[in-house]
């Protein structure tokens, strides 16, 4: 008679592999989680088969003398297959609930077989049903973890893309660049912004850079330090840095914080900064006619 | 700051080992590190930052430590590219002070140790009066 181990379930699985696949795919359709809009029947069947094969392999390798532990080496393949299938499904727009329901639908076909094979031995039946539940539940949980990790990666990637988008270096005039900063300026972003700015100076051979902070929410000591360091690096490369958009309030903050702005030129707005920058690169702005 | 060390056994084979006796050895050391980083696809900014940290520490080994040796290896746990500079010189008595920007017993900038710590992704130092000095720097790849 079966003990706590997975041996009995493995026997059932091997005895009627194709039947179980059929019923599982059937159950998925019944539960409404077989997304025929996203997956063809053949694909669904192939994935279910692959999962069951990995499950059988795991049960063969599993050490039945110890408590079931899904992180054990025996389940490496199954975890990998689950991860692959989850990723595939996430990318096609399957939701976490659908993914979990898909896994949980495997319980039905397995319970049916346990019932017919162990019907008279109530104790063994309960034990085996609990084991199958634990197994399948941990698959569903694993699926969910992969799902979350995958989502986080997507979010990270998008955040990076947004960061690049939100710090464009614009060529305002021949050899004059401007960097309109918007939002918050933490250390990571400040570093990235600075590197991007310096690279552009080199490419464009820019002589003046206007860093406009009109759109920066708050300027505290940290932000002010980042700005001054960026200005210092710009100067080291041989270009001039003008910080524009210094409101009276920010000026006050900077003075109160005791930040030495002596070496950096600052202007109230980008217009004043541009008027300053153009003569430096040999241009003059003048009115063509009275208006 | 005074830290544990990774044992030689766990760190595996050195990619490179050079003496650090002269100015020229300092150049060879930082160039070797730059080469190793580039060969592993590191961006220019990371190469420059780390090679600068190595230059500072290797110069200290020659100048303050009376000469020593330099090794490059990979940390199997983190995959970091690691550099070790060691000497059997007089060591540093007051490490906290030596780490402070602007402190130097040699009349120089005194920004090497603090700067190297900021520029490297990992920084470990083992030193003490009469114990020599061993600095380990790590670069994320």
């Amino acid at each position, binding site marked *: 008679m079966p003990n706590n181990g997975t041996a009995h379930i493995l026997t059932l699985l091997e005895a009627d592999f194709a039947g179980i696949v059929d019923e599982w795919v059937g159950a998925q359709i019944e539960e409404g989680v077989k997304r025929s809009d996203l997956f063809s029947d053949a694909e669904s069947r192939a994935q279910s088969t692959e999962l069951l094969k990995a499950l059988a392999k795991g049960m063969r390798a599993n050490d039945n003398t110890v408590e079931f532990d899904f992180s054990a080496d025996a389940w490496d393949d199954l975890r990998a297959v689950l991860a692959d299938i989850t990723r595939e499904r996430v990318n096609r727009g399957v939701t976490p609930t659908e993914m979990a329901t898909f896994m949980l639908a495997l319980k039905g076909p397995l319970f049916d077989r346990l019932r017919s094979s162990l019907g008279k031995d109530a104790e063994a039946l309960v034990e085996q049903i609990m084991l199958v539940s634990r197994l399948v539940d941990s698959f569903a949980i694993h699926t969910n973890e992969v799902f979350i990790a995958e989502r986080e990666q997507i979010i990270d990637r998008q955040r990076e893309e947004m960061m690049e988008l939100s710090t464009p270096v614009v060529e305002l005039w021949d050899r004059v660049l401007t960097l309109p900063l918007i939002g918050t300026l933490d250390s990571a972003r400040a*570093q990235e912004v*600075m*590197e991007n700015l*310096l*690279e552009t*100076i*080199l490419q464009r*051979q820019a*002589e003046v850079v206007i860093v406009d902070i009109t759109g920066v929410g708050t300027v505290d000591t940290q932000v002010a330090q980042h700005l001054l*360091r960026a200005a*210092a*690096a*710009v*100067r*080291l*490369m*041989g*270009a001039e840095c003008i910080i524009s958009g210094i409101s009276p309030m920010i000026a006050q903050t900077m003075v109160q914080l005791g930040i030495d702005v002596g*070496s950096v030129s600052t202007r109230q707005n980008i217009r004043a900064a541009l008027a300053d920058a153009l003569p430096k690169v040999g241009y003059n702005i003048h009115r063509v006619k009275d208006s | 700051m005074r830290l544990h060390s990774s044992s030689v056994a766990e760190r595996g084979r050195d990619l490179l080992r050079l003496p650090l006796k002269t*100015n*020229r050895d*300092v*150049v060879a050391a*930082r*160039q070797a590190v*730059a080469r190793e980083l580039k060969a592993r696809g590191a961006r*220019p*900014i990371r*190469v*420059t*930052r780390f*090679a*600068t940290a190595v*230059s*500072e520490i290797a*110069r200290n080994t020659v100048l303050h430590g009376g000469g020593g040796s330099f090794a490059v290896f990979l940390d199997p746990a983190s995959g970091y590219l690691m550099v070790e500079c060691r000497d059997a010189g007089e060591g540093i008595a007051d490490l906290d002070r030596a780490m402070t*920007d602007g402190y130097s017993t040699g009349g*120089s*900038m005194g*920004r*090497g140790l603090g*700067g190297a710590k*900021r*520029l490297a992704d990992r920084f470990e130092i083992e030193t003490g009066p009469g114990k020599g000095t061993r600095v380990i720097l790590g670069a994320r790849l």
Partner: protein
Amino acid sequence: MSGVAAINLVENALLVSIQDDVTDTDIIELQDTLSQRIALEENIRGVVLDISALEIVDTFVGRVIAQLAGIARLLDAQTFVVGMRPAVAVTLVELGMYLPESRTALSLTHALAQLKRG
């Protein structure tokens, strides 16, 4: 000197390209040579150090450049550091070496133009 190319005199300025294998000894020698030439030759108004070949500038090289700028100023000449790579600029800022004593320019041409303008 291996890590330093020859010193050229162009329009009242001494031009030097520093090479990437420059050692501490080389750079100190360069400081000596340049100081002497500014002092002895007439009409030298500037020194231009092209560091575009340098992958790193550490606190030692930074200090020598700063000192050279100080010496040159006493002898009524200006020092320009030109062609610094972005990665080097970022690293020097991290080291707290802002080189306030020297002027900077994108390239040799820019430096010469600025020297002319005064």
